[in-house]
């Protein structure tokens, strides 16, 4: 009994660790979609910022600086995305794919230039052992057996992610700025007819929200494990898009939808110890993303029918 409870706690723990990066990216997607900027550069942004978090840590051994650089890089890329889409009227799909293509090439290029590999660099670098983000162990929690497992190995950014969901909610739904941003997302021309500089609002808000992807990037490379591997983001950016689709851009809904997808991802890694083959397990998150979207749409349609 205790064993299975302990096992469940492990699953929950790895779910949490999968959820938080996804949640942060989804929150950025939420803000972007609320101001009607279709951001599919999430994937490339995540990958590049994850790389820079690792790289900065490798060169400076300063974890604060690593987080800062990662956040700034993510904001820079998101700014470029927003500038091209909003200011230059670029097609969002193409801008996003361009950034994603570039990011994969760029990180592999840098990986090869700096670390002389195109695969994985783990914490044991030629330059000595890297340390990741400090794992928090909260007094109270660390003494209760099963709860301890659930919250094991979580970093401050993991906790921050949940807080940011609430902060994003408050900013978007309670403040004047958030009110204007949502209004812009609903009707751009109405907002600009009243003299609001719509493009500026869109670009600044998306850029700031991009910072959250930077935090997610830190979690990937300096979180529960400290390593960088080629294409480490592994479609999380796209899954975040789906998660955002499910929660309709609501930051609190993002908690739920990213939990759902984080769980499938965790399931895949937890089941790795079983007889099931790894490659098939890897499919679980992707299959369940499609399934969740389909089921959600069917339910939504039923609901609107039931209303009638």
């Amino acid at each position, binding site marked *: 009994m205790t064993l299975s409870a302990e096992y469940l706690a492990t699953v929950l723990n790895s779910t949490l660790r999968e959820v938080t990066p996804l949640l942060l990216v989804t929150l950025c997607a939420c803000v972007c979609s609320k101001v009607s900027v279709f951001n599919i550069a999430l994937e490339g942004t995540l990958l590049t910022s994850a790389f820079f978090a690792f790289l900065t840590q490798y060169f400076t051994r300063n974890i604060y600086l690593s987080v800062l650089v990662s956040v700034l890089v993510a904001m820079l890329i998101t700014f470029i995305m927003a500038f091209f889409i909003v200011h230059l009227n670029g097609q969002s799909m193409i801008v996003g794919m361009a950034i994603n293509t570039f990011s994969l090439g760029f990180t592999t*290029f840098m990986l090869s230039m700096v670390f002389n590999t195109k695969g994985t660099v783990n914490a044991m670098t030629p330059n000595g052992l890297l340390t990741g983000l400090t794992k928090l162990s909260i007094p109270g929690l660390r003494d209760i057996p099963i709860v301890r497992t659930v919250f094991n190995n979580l970093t401050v950014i993991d906790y921050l992610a949940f807080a940011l969901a609430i902060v994003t909610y408050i900013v978007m739904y309670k403040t004047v700025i958030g009110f204007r941003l949502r209004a812009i997302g609903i009707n751009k021309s109405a907002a600009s007819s009243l003299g609001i500089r719509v493009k500026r609002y869109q670009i600044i808000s998306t850029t700031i929200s991009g910072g959250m992807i930077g935090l997610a990037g830190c979690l990937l490379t300096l979180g529960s494990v400290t390593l960088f591997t080629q294409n480490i983001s592994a479609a999380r950016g796209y899954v975040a898009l789906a998660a955002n689709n499910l929660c309709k851009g609501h930051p609190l809904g993002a908690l739920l939808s990213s939990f759902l997808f984080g769980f499938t991802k965790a399931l895949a890694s937890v089941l790795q110890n079983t007889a099931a083959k790894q*490659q098939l397990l890897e499919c679980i998150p992707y299959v369940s993303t*499609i399934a969740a979207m389909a089921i959600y749409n069917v339910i939504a349609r039923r609901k609107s029918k039931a209303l009638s």
Partner: protein
Amino acid sequence: MTRENRNWKKTLLAIADGFSQPLVAVIISLFLAAIVITICGENVFTAYGAMLRGAFGNSFYLNDTLKRSTPIIMGGLAVRIAWRSGYEAMGGEGQMILGAFCAALVAYYLPVPGVVRIVLAMLAASVVGAAYSILSGWLYERFQVTFIISTLMLNYIANYFASYMTNYVVKDPDGLDINAVQTGKIAVEARLQSIFSGSVHWGFAFALICVALMTFLFKKTSFGYKSRMGGLNPKFALYGGVNPRKMLYLVMIISGVSAGLGGAFEALGSKYRYIDQMIFTTGYAWSGMVAALLANFNPIGTAVASILLAGLSTGGSAMQRSTIIPLEVCNMIEGIITLLMSVRLIRITQRGYKTKRKAKGGARA
């Protein structure tokens, strides 16, 4: 007379307009990459010289480039038809993976004469590619799952599935290297033979035929007209009696067949087997998308752009061999080109923009 003159002028301007944008995009991105190369401590001219020689320098390299362009052309055509018909699907990669995988299996296992095997392998790739493409179409039509999400997810699923099969089910039985995750090598008679003496194989010729077919399809048939109108304004097409459902599936089938065949050509003419991750890591489908974009979705232009992009990557490998610059710099160039192609950089003909604004105003007023 004057009218004809004006028409000529207009056509020339339009052509110049069509070429100027990709040209500027390519130049800017090469320039940016040159900065990166310089920072890395290499001479730009040495690096680009190596790249150019490695892409088009002699018949061996040229062959290699053309061979490499084959799946890119097919991927480009797949993107072209889907996007121009209004479906922003990016499932070419998944379809190409399954196409290559199935073609490799059919050509390896089927106990029939060589030529029949090739035909059946290509047929299998077409069917599988189309089916996978239809799947995303079905998800869209039946469940409103957007193309971007469904196709991207399906790409990963296809890759993992093929990887699983190659690892555990159809792994090369007589391979010498136990670590190589690949299917068995296709017998010589079931391979796409080289056209000349070099490595470029008949798949390239097929791809060019497909370009011609595609051009014909869009210029001359009522299907082409309907799909184009559906892409420009789906409501208009519906209003004019076009069956949107039929169009969706037809477009998905053609797009899927194209991508699937691209995979088959790669397996039958280039690698002679399916090697785990062989489509995923080379990014053929994405290059195809970039090529289609560069050519503004013109099929012939897509083929030309595909060859250039293939040259970029064969040249990149050459550069990697002779300098310290890794070939991924080419992905960066590709990314920057795409980014620059997403916006209007320069405008030779002023017309389109202004009138478009006017039409918008008109719609509102």
